[in-house]
């Protein structure tokens, strides 16, 4: 294969890997918004916290796999507590449309708390999470080489996308969740424990942020600014894909990943303009996002 083809394919895979990582972060964000109508600004902070928890687990056990298993569960637990003890209480006050504003403020507060806690617990120095031995090194194909870990991220994200789709659209649990979201009062009247469903959805959303945090940790240094680093991109994905649309989040993540990679290759000085220009264009033509509902 000639050098230009190798370069183009490599850039394509870079875009895919970054897009998949972005999707992992954004999927939890859009899931929570789509199902519960909560714009969880603290989502990226959960992502960062997961990276730190993974770092800590690896310090203690040396096992990335244990970190990948436990850190997202810990983050989901924290998310569930947040929903049960804080967000649910706000909803009880019957604040009408203003509830969205109060929820937003609450999640901003939690975001700041997480960032400060991280600084106090781990300090401000960047930390490095090593790629596990099994995923270290390069894979060779068609005369190209590519890092195994990035392929792993693509695979992990695809698996999670499939799993999510199956749970939501092919299982009874998925039917219950979708019913509760469609009409909470009716679902409640039919005996569905709606608050429990919402707690589960919030837990699942934060678990996704946790998985993304652990997966991203070996690719990026772990430091208190990590949340801000991912926040804007994941917000763009959710807004352009349509708030609440998992499929939209997936498509936009891929588009963003590829636009970034090829933008750097061909128009390096303009890659940011291309990205935000694309955002402006989509929001002008379709303010609800490419796959969002008009409501």
């Amino acid at each position, binding site marked *: 294969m000639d*050098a230009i083809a190798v*370069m183009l394919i*490599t*850039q394509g895979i*870079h*875009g895919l*890997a*970054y897009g998949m990582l972005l999707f992992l972060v954004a999927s939890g964000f859009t899931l929570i918004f789509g199902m519960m109508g909560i714009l969880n600004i603290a989502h990226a902070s959960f992502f960062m916290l997961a990276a730190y928890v993974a770092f800590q687990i690896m310090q203690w056990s040396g096992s990335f796999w244990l970190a990948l298993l436990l850190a997202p569960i810990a983050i989901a637990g924290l998310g569930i507590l947040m929903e049960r003890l804080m967000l649910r209480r706000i909803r009880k006050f019957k604040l009408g449309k203003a509830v969205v504003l109060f929820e937003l403020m609450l999640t901003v507060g939690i975001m700041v708390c997480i*960032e400060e806690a991280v*600084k106090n617990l781990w*300090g*401000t*120095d*960047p930390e*490095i999470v*090593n*790629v596990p031995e099994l995923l*270290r*090194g*390069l894979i060779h194909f068609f005369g190209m*080489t590519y*890092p195994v*870990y*990035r392929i792993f991220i693509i695979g992990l994200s695809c698996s999670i996308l499939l799993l999510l789709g199956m749970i939501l659209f092919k299982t009874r649990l998925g039917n219950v969740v979708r019913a509760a979201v469609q009409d909470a009062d009716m679902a409640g009247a039919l005996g569905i424990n709606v608050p429990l469903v919402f707690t589960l959805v919030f837990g699942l959303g934060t678990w996704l942020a946790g998985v993304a945090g652990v997966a991203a940790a*070996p*690719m*990026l*240094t772990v*430091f*208190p*600014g990590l949340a*801000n*680093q*991912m926040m804007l*991109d994941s917000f763009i994905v959710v807004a352009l894909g349509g708030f609440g649309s998992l499929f939209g989040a997936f498509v936009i993540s891929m588009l963003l990943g590829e636009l*970034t*990679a090829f933008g*750097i*290759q061909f128009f*390096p*000085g303009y890659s*940011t303009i291309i990205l935000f220009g694309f955002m402006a264009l989509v929001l002008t033509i379709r303010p609800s996002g490419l796959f969002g509902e008009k409501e």
Partner: protein
Amino acid sequence: MKSIRALFPSIMYLCLLCLYIISGLDTEPAIAFTPLKADFSTYDPNKQEIPGGDTIKVGLLEPFSGQSAAAGEISNWLLGWVVHDINSQGGIMVDGKMKKIQVIKADTATQPVVAKRALQRLILKDKVDLFVGTAGSHIAIIGNQMAEKYQKIFMNYSAYSVHLMNAQNFNRYTFRTCSNTDINAKALAYYFSKTSIRKFYILCQDYSYGQDFGASIKKALEEFVPDAEIVGEVYHPLWLKDFAPYLSKIKASGAEMIISSDWPPDSWNLMLAIDQMGMSIPVSGQFFDDPRMSQNLKNKKAGLGNTVVNFHLCNVETELNSRFNKIFHDRYKDNEKVQISWPSGVVGGVIGHFYWLFDVIQRAGTMNTEKIITTWEGDTYESFTGKLTMRKCDHQAVMDMFVSPLVSPSKWSKTGDGLGYQDHGIRIPSDIVISPCPEGLK
């Protein structure tokens, strides 16, 4: 005889008076601090003593939140080292009193608007005598402006953009003790002129410092390595998430060396990406020697040959530097939390520059801004790696520069056998790297 006896007390009194006047002519204060005298085994930047009473208030303008918070904590650590040393010796004699130094932190969050507010608080509310900083040339420019507006000394020890001290931005209250982008670029280019490396790729952050460094290195390569080929030039957004697409582009360009002005976390993420992509291309710049990053590289080729340029390196042999190295290393060699066990470039250099600042104040003998300015202008100070001179025309410190490639095994690594500086740093004399005073200075 009786009259002589009667005059004796008066003669004695006159003699004493003369002695007093003569001693008063001596500008050196009676008590002076000596660098590196304190017991550093107890020094902890997180448990710094806050001296009471009449103190010298020094504002520390740095990011303590946001992406660059680590830079602020490092500066606090370095300034704290010097303050701990001086305060444990009783402080500095100024305006007829021994005063201890009090550090007051101000968070810039690396945002100009936040930095301006933080500085106003430092100057108007905390009433600092002077302030020091700061990470980010776009923040240092705010420091320049505020120093001039409120007539406070601003010591810039870590913002390198050459434009900060040009005719447009210079003011007599700001002193830059670190090098600048022109100096760093010339030192690197001079070093490369002695090697066989000829294909360079410029990769810098897309803001004033990165842009300035890019322009400086192109000019310096033209001057010192006329046959150099710049095979690519890219400016990336600050705090980039993924360097992989840039590296693929660089790989295709056939570059032998990346020249980059990136600082953490970008410099760390760039090295991690090189490591994970199995690349062996070295990077040269100021911040590619951090042992906290290099000891985590798994690909044995990554980082090897990285070429570091700085105004201080621990592998430069001078008597004072050896003493400093020993004290620093004894303090941190067994410290699990601090991975920097040798005072690498920026760490050692900035500590040296803080000693210079307080030495100037000590010799001025006052906190009067005008007196400090006249004492510092044209001043020469013997720091760890050699002589520092404050050029009067533009308040830019003039000093020898140092370059060192990274090798493995290196005695300067934390473990003693990992990636680190080569045994001895290469000294590049100041007259090779310094540019003439900028035109149009008032």
